[in-house]
């Protein structure tokens, strides 16, 4: 009888311990990943900004050749290594201070550090589809408010050489296997691109991975870093989140 009591008691303690550990995991996932990711991403933004201002004049003499009038963002954004941050995304709708690093790749560790760029899709500002993924919840949730974006909202991509401004056109909600949303012509796989688009993908609904909320934006303007970005593109729209 005493042995039975000990066995039942121990099983109870083990179950309670597992329950507490599960609650701890939920707290870590929903709260702590935001704390650490927000801190790391803020540091990454500072590092990127410092790098951009230091290297604003391309050290590579070949980069300055060719037609001087047309900014060529591709020139400085070739062969970005997997996992490396190469741009900053700013979205006035998400608040005046909203800035997140954009990194090459969309695997789990990369998306924990900011917005991920789908490998093989176009780089910002060029013809094709600059396709990105971001967390809707947890890990700093860069695309938490993706459903608040409205037609005409500006998405500003800051690179070493340029400010690239996209304007939101439309959105769709799809299951995760709809790869045509990141096709060179969004939703038209196989078509030859003639325009520059940007795709943003995030989980939908919040706290679920059942669907993807997908926003398509079209290239509006490209500004050189030297010329600067007109303030109107960073104006916070009425009813913005931040």
């Amino acid at each position, binding site marked *: 009888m005493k042995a039975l009591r000990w066995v039942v008691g121990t099983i109870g303690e083990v179950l309670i311990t597992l329950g507490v550990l599960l609650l701890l*995991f939920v707290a*870590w996932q929903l709260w702590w990943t935001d704390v650490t990711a927000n801190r790391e991403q803020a540091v990454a933004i500072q590092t990127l900004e410092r790098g951009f201002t230091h290297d604003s004049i391309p050290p590579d003499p070949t980069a300055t050749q060719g037609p001087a009038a047309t900014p060529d963002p591709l020139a400085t954004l070739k062969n970005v290594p*997997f996992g490396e941050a190469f741009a900053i995304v700013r979205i006035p709708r998400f608040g005046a201070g909203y800035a997140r690093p954009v990194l090459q*790749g*969309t695997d789990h560790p990369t998306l924990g550090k900011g917005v991920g760029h789908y490998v093989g899709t176009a780089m910002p500002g060029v013809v094709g589809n600059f396709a990105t*993924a971001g967390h809707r919840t947890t890990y700093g949730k860069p695309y938490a408010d993706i459903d608040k974006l409205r037609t005409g909202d500006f998405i500003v991509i800051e690179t070493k050489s340029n400010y690239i401004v996209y304007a939101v056109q439309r959105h769709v909600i799809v299951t995760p296997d709809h*790869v045509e949303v*990141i096709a060179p012509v969004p939703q038209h796989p196989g078509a030859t691109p003639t325009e520059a688009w940007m795709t943003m993908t995030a989980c939908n609904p919040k706290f*679920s991975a059942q669907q993807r909320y997908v926003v398509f934006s079209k290239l509006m303007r490209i500004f050189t870093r030297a010329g600067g970005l007109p303030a109107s593109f960073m104006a916070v729209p009425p009813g913005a989140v931040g």
Partner: protein
Amino acid sequence: MYGPLWRLLPGRRPVKALLSLILAAGVVVLCFLWVFPAIAPLMPFNDNTIQSGSPSSDPTTMAP
């Protein structure tokens, strides 16, 4: 399992209680810094990209 642990801890009751708290805090730190980050990628709700076929961290599985 906690009974023997309590008896194993040295000192009187307040000392035992304090040591238990420190041990519990140690477990939380261990989980937050190493255990949870290691198991998080295995959770189905952490897949949030568009990809063809079964979910995989291999970027080559994604369509153009």
